[in-house]
Each structure stands twice: as C-alpha cells, then as structure tokens.
C-alpha cells in the first residue's frame, strides 16, 4: 500500500524533502510507520510533532488507510 508522507517546518531540515512515498503493509499502524521513518531519519525521533491522516490529527495507534500522512511540528500561526 503506497503512503504519501508530507513533512513541514523544521522537519524538512531533517528529511531534506517535503514529500515522499513509502510502500507499507495493509494494517500497519501510525507508530509502526514512525519506527520506519526513525530508522531512515535518525534525529526525527528527537523532534516534537503531531501526525495527521487525511488532514485530521490522529493517534499513533491509528491504522493507516492509505491516505495522505503529514508530520506537523508545533503550530505557529498568527
């Protein structure tokens, strides 16, 4: 199952990309996806961020649905 992952703000300084596509197994949970990303990007683990799936914040035990995932560092609007 192809998952598009978007990175924002300071997280892009770690990933050096705004967006990538990963192939994950059906039934994978968000935290399992994060483990995969932590292996790829060592320092990502040290950063504070929330995860959105289909533009809604989700818990790390949520199942991947195949929709867009976004890693969102602390908001700074206004």
């Amino acid at each position: 199952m192809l998952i598009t992952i978007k990175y924002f703000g300071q997280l892009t300084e770690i990933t050096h990309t705004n967006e990538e596509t990963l192939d994950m197994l059906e039934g994978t949970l968000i935290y399992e996806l994060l483990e995969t990303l932590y292996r790829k990007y060592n320092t990502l683990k040290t950063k504070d961020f929330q995860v959105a799936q289909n533009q809604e914040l989700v818990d790390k035990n949520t199942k991947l649905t195949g929709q867009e995932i976004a890693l969102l560092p602390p908001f700074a609007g206004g």
Partner: protein
Amino acid sequence: MTDKKSKSVFMEGAITSEFIGNSIYKHQTKTNIGAHNIFLGQVRADVINDKTVLAITYTAYLDMANQKFHEIRESAFEKFELTCMHIYHSLGTVKAGEICLFVFVSAPRRKVVFEALEYIVEAIKADVPVFGKEIFEDETHQWKVNS
C-alpha cells in the same frame, strides 16, 4: 445580511494597513452592524540569545489549514450571532513590525464580538497547521512555537 461565504484566508506577504482600512470601509454599507472587533498579529523583533528577529517566513499545510479555517468559521457562526467574519493570514516572509494575521468580526451589538474574536484567534493558534521560521539578522533561524 449574514455573510457566510468562505473566501481565501492566505495572502502572500504582509497584510497592509491599507488593506485593513479598505476592509473596514467596505462594512459601512452594512448598517445593521453596531460593533466591529479586529485582531491583528504583528511580527515582533524578539531578541533571542542576543540576536534580533528580522522577519518570519510562514509556510502551511495548505489543504488542512484551509479546512481548519473553514471549520473555525462554521463553528464561530454557530456559536455567536455574527453579521460577518473575515480571516486573513500571511504566507511567505513578513518583516518585524508588519502584520501577519487579521481577524475581523462584526455584529449588531458589542458583547458578542468580544467573545467571538477571542474564540477565533485562540482556535487559529491551536488548530491551524501554520509554521513560522524566525530569521535573525545574521541569517540564522529558529522555528517559532505558539504559546
């Protein structure tokens, strides 16, 4: 005469005082309005570890941000008897002293505009995925966090 249509919230660069003045002017035809309340967020030249912030560069998760602005708008119209509501947020670089957020609510009477404005501003700060990179005079930067 309730103006509930959704408009684009994001603007490239700073929000000018002329734009704000013009927005106020346009409301003078709405003669059922008795009270306006306006919030403006202005970029501060904060000094952090002896370095001064020159500007903030804003980026956003646009699809989600627009959706959140829409939800905040709907929820504010549901909670408060407003005649109209406008929200504008900058994207890109806004210099210290310039305005990056403009929230404008109007109603027949005053009580409701105070409550509505604070509600909307707090919701924007909490729920909208906007990111701010504070640029210092030596071209280094740090990432802003809302408090």
